[in-house]
């Protein structure tokens, strides 16, 4: 025996193992188990901040977990390996079966077994004309194989059709997911009420493109945030409704239209959708230097920390000498508690406070290390003041002054383009149709044989009940003829 033949037969053996049902079943169970850690450890794709916190809390453990991709389970090599093997196994199983099934479309049922009395649902009735039986079975839409003294009838091929449709649709869904991740884009932008957002990469706070998506492919719309309304339940402080009103133009510069965006009602441009993702408050401050010259005047988005929108933020003034930073929190409705200190007791702005601690020194903006806009690295700074400001109050911190003049709402727009999702939807609809067809179609055979009496027997695939009644009915009808 040559080694070439050996390796070929080995490969064939591997292929047969991979496409066997047992392997597919093991891979399916493995896929379920492999999905578990992603729900137990924070994932980079959903919660990068929690992942960072995990690294800070358990540095050694986190490093080891990261080596096994446990913070990005669903894009990890081992998770990918399992589902790719599963899909190869599935295709290797389903394709030959599809071809076989297509060939069987015109085929006649297999020959009637020799001894019907060994089969299930066996009955004998007084002799009836086979032509009559055949006509009856044809009327019941059975496929018929008619031999001289027997009939072999089969029905329920749709079961296999549905089964194959279901599995092929899963492949379509997988392809759609792939298309979505290779093409398309996803970005977030925080925009203050009154501001205008033009859909270019520089307008985004975060923006990611699929591997094969050109960066100049963003649809050229622009929108102006006209109004944002958040309604709260005064009894429970829970949000009731968010309404975002925007003036849109597509392309930017064309005639403007007023549109409403809600949590479950995104704005759509082709395969691009604009979602209202989050909201918060932006306190407005005026910062002057020692000479009284205005250095900064405007809103700064703050990051909400709880359901009552107590928010933290950083107001950075790099244009002063020395540089000034305000590590701040904003309380929309200020309240005091002997234990917790100042806190917000309602998410709407009823009695706002801006708590600031003033730092001077080097903000570290030129180090090249990306910084959070909500935090200040105070390692090269020195604290020179601390103050809780009510509305329109000013505070002189020596190097200059700050005045808390008002607030605005901000909204987080999430702008997503996923060209694959249409295919995924089609795949899902086909999959569920296939599933319904295959699970609710009974495939069964009925045999009739002519002897001294007429013999009837049947076989239901997977032992699904119903055939017994069907045969009883047939016998009754034949008897009454």
């Amino acid at each position, binding site marked *: 025996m040559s080694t070439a033949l050996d390796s070929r037969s080995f490969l064939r053996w591997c292929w047969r193992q991979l496409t066997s049902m047992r392997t597919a079943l093991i891979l*399916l169970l493995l896929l379920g188990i492999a999905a578990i850690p*992603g729900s137990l450890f924070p994932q980079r794709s959903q919660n990068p901040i929690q992942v960072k916190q995990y690294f800070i809390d358990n540095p050694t453990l986190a490093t080891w977990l990261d080596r096994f991709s446990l913070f990005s389970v669903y894009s990890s090599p081992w998770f990918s390996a399992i589902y790719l093997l599963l899909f190869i196994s599935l295709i290797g199983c389903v394709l030959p079966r599809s071809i076989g099934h297509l060939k069987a479309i015109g085929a006649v049922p297999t020959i009637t077994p020799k001894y019907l009395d060994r089969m299930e649902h066996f009955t004998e009735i007084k002799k009836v004309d086979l032509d009559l039986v055949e006509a009856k079975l044809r009327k019941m839409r059975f496929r018929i194989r008619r031999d001289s003294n027997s009939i072999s009838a089969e029905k329920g091929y749709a079961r296999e059709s549905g089964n194959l449709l279901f599995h092929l649709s899963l492949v379509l869904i997988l392809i759609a997911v792939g298309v979505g991740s290779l093409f398309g884009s996803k970005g977030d932008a925080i925009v203050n009420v009154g501001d205008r957002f033009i859909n270019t990469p520089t307008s985004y706070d975060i923006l990611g493109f699929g591997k094969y998506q050109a960066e100049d492919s963003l649809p050229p719309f622009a929108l102006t945030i006209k109004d944002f309304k958040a309604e709260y339940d005064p009894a429970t402080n829970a949000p009731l409704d968010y309404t975002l009103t925007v003036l849109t133009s597509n392309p930017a510069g064309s005639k403007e239209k007023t549109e409403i965006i*809600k*949590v*479950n009602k*995104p704005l759509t441009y082709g395969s691009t959708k604009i979602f209202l993702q989050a909201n918060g408050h932006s306190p407005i401050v005026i910062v002057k230097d020692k000479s009284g010259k205005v250095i900064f005047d405007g809103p700064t988005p703050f990051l909400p920390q709880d359901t009552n929108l107590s928010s933290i933020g950083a107001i950075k003034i790099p244009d002063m000498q020395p540089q000034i930073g305000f590590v701040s929190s904003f309380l929309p409705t200020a309240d005091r508690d002997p234990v917790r200190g100042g806190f917000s007791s309602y998410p709407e702005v009823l009695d706002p406070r801006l708590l600031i601690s003033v730092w001077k020194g080097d903000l570290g903006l030129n180090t090249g290390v990306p910084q959070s806009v909500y935090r200040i690295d105070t390692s090269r700074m020195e604290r020179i003041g601390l103050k809780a400001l009510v509305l329109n109050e000013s505070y002189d911190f020596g190097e200059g002054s700050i005045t808390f003049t008002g607030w605005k709402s901000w909204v987080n727009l999430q702008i997503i383009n*996923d060209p694959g999702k249409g295919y995924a939807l089609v795949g899902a609809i086909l999959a569920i149709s296939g599933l319904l067809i295959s*699970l609710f179609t009974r495939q069964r055979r009925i045999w009739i044989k002519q002897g001294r009496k007429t013999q009837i027997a049947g076989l239901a695939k997977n032992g699904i009940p119903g055939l017994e009644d069907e045969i009883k009915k047939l016998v009754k009808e034949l008897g009454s003829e």
Partner: protein
Amino acid sequence: MSNTSIALLSNDFIYASMALFTLAFFAHAVEVAWSVKTPAKSVKKTKLDFSRTERVGRLASAFMVLGFLLLTAGVIFRGISADRVPWGNMYEFSITGALAFSGAYLFALKKYKLRWLGLPVSLAVLLTLGTAITLLYRPSAPLAPALKSTWLVIHVSAAIISGGVFLLANCVAGAYLILDRYEQKGVRPIWAQKLPSLEVLDNLSYRLVALVFPLWTFAVIAGAIWAESAWGRYWGWDPKETWAFITWVAYAAYLHARVTVGWRGRKAAWLCLLAGSTFLFNYIYINVWGTGRHTYSGL
């Protein structure tokens, strides 16, 4: 009537249904415990007489039906009090889930002669309702903005009904394993003589799963469509989504194991229990302690 008083009326109905389920539980227990006179040693076991507790058994079923009706009223009034479908927090998921579970039992009771299963079912319903009204209870309130969608009705109802039937299949699989253990040791104890054969139980749990698996698939797909319109992506491996996927995979494996690989009996029953427990884990653990976007438990 004000919304608050309707909510209180709903609570009264829930308590009343709990009373009925308690009665049903005891009636079922009586039926099981005293169904057969212990046969004297001389009497052959083949002639067992169950007529003695037939009445108690029917009474138990009547209690179950009444409890179900009262629970239905409780769930409906809860919805009216909040002016929406009653699926906004975990208390409401639980009472509706108990409704779906008892409903699935009553549906199967007619079709498959399942009265004996009333004992674990009434107990499970009681435990669910008890936990709901003591630990999970929240006053009736409007929905969070993210839940304001037609998909709430479609996605959550499909998920709750599937859950009810999955758990019923679990009860059957559990019963299978218990009876199987007895039969391995020898014969069944007398109280279990009336229960269906192992083969019937095995088929029943398979049929329940096969019946509701497409609905669960639909629930997951409907959730994906809703997620796309609310959160901008149809799938994001949120913990709840992940566990819904795991449940789907586990039941898919169960169906394949039975239909294609030919698993029967004990192995299949264990796989069924495993799949059902992933559903329960998702419902209990992820709702209460989990993170992610499906945090609507209100706890």
